[in-house]
Structures are given as C-alpha cells and as structure tokens.
C-alpha cells in the first residue's frame, strides 16, 4: 500500500491511498483502502492514510477513529493516532496523518513501515523501523 496526506498554509487537508491489497488474496476481495473511514479519511481536523491488514483496519475504523478521538476526546493528532493504533492487535496497522495545524505523526504496530514526512519549519524524516 502507498499513501500520502498533506495540509497547506490555510489548513486545507487531503488524503490519498492506493494499493494492490494482500498477496494471495481472494479474487474480488475489497480491503480497507477504498472504504471511507477505514483506511482513508479526512475532515476539518486531520487527514489519515492507513496501511497493513485491511480486515483489521476495517474492523477498527482506524482512519475515522483518529479524527473522532481528536474531535470527541480533545486529544492532539499524535495522541489520537497513537491511541487508535494501540487498539489494533500488534502487527496489523500503520498510518500517516497530518492535522490542520501542521502536526505530523506516523505510528505503526508492525515491525516496520516505509515512511517519510516534512514540515514547513524544516523538519524532515525518512524511516523504515522504529527509532
């Protein structure tokens, strides 16, 4: 799976995700990527793109939950994303997300996730495994 989230100086948010799915998946299987709120979601607070085992991401409504936890629990993007990823059984999910205020987070509970990010203040990161 691949994905990207972005926010501009005016707080406009967007997300995009694309995938081939799982190796050896059944013909006709639909994963989390195209299910709005499961693997891909954006609203006025944040934009999220997920990757991992689609069936688990759908059950966890992972992308929408990040936005919901921000909205209803008042957590920051980083806290909300970490909370949601923690609810999914280990080894199943990773996500990238940005908030309308320019916050970035890239949590995962798999061994690794190919990821990269940058912010206007000059911060940049490319990684695979946990720091």
């Amino acid at each position: 799976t691949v994905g990207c989230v972005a926010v501009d100086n005016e707080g406009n948010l967007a997300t995009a995700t694309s995938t081939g799915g799982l190796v050896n998946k059944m013909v006709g299987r639909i994963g989390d990527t195209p299910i709005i709120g499961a693997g891909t979601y954006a609203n006025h607070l944040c934009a999220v793109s997920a990757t991992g085992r689609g069936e688990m991401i759908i059950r966890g409504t992972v992308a929408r939950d990040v936005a919901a936890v921000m909205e209803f629990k008042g957590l920051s993007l980083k806290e909300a994303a970490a909370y949601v990823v923690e609810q999914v059984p280990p080894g199943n999910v990773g996500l990238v997300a940005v908030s309308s205020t320019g916050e970035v987070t890239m949590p995962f509970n798999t061994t690794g996730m190919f990821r990269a990010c940058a912010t206007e203040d000059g911060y940049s990161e490319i990684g695979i495994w946990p720091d």
Partner: protein
Amino acid sequence: MGWAIALHGGAGDIPLSLPPENRLPREAALRHCLDVGIAALKAHKHPLDVVELVVRELENHQNFNAGKGSVLTTSGTVEMEACIMDGKTKKCGAVSGLSTVVNAISLARLVMEKTPHIYLAFDGAEAFAREHGLETVDPSHFITPENIERLKLAQEANRVQIDYTQPIQKEVKKDAASADVDSQIG
C-alpha cells in the same frame, strides 16, 4: 501553522536484515516522492493535487504494492484499489478491482469530481476510466517477477500476506507451532 506532508510505502514484517539492494531503492523513492510533495506545497498547490501527485509517483514505483508492482491474487491477477478525500468538503472518491488503469488514484479523483457517487468497482470502474481517457495498459504491465515468486511462496505456505511480510514455509510454521507449545509449557 504551516504546510506539512507525510507519506508511506506500506507496513508489515519488514526484516531488520533487509538487504541494501531492497532497502536503498525504496528509501530513494520515498525521498523523491517527498521532494515532489514539498515542491508542490511550496508552489501553493491544493493538498488534493499534492496527495494525488505523490501517490501517482508511488504507484509508478515497482518496489511498492500499488500500481506497477501490485501483489497478486490467488489467480495470479492484479486487482488494484485507491481512495482520495478532501478534508474541508468531505468529498471523496474510491475505486476497486482495477486491472488495467495505470494510476488508480487519478480514477478515484475522477469518481469524486465527475460522478454523483463515491465508489466504483471492477467493470464499471474500468469502463469509467476509458470513458474519461485515463491511461490503461495490459494487466501484465503491473506484474513483476518478484511478485510472481511471492505468490508462489504464499500459496505453498497457504496464507495471505500484508506488505513485506516474509513468507513462512509449511515446515517453519510447524516448528513455530511447536515452539509456542514449548513456551506455554514454560
């Protein structure tokens, strides 16, 4: 408040011993795609344009599981999916079951912008792509020798795999099960 961008090329059981020949091209691709996104944001492109642009780049890179390099179904075919969403308007578009569309993410955006619907799949999505002149190719374009081998190993082990998970052979699974039993015994 400033602009920000994040992208991923998939998650899974990526071994810490990943050989440089597998790691370096992916890191280079991540850096390239990040630079593309940064340049677009600096040029004041709308985030919707930025994420589509970056995901197209990732789809075109055969080391990632999307577009060229997509993993294979039990029948050895590709069935690609994509989704795009705008935060402020909550407009969104999604596609599934694509086998010939070069950039699924651009078709998802067309669904969002040119239809009253959110989600098109399989034959309908393919026909919609052709109606709007999106680039299409023979399905073999997306299939790499590496993914043919991955499918073979996955089928031998009788399992489905998320991105980058190392195939487990039947014999290894048996050993692992034995190890679990031993562990429970303590």
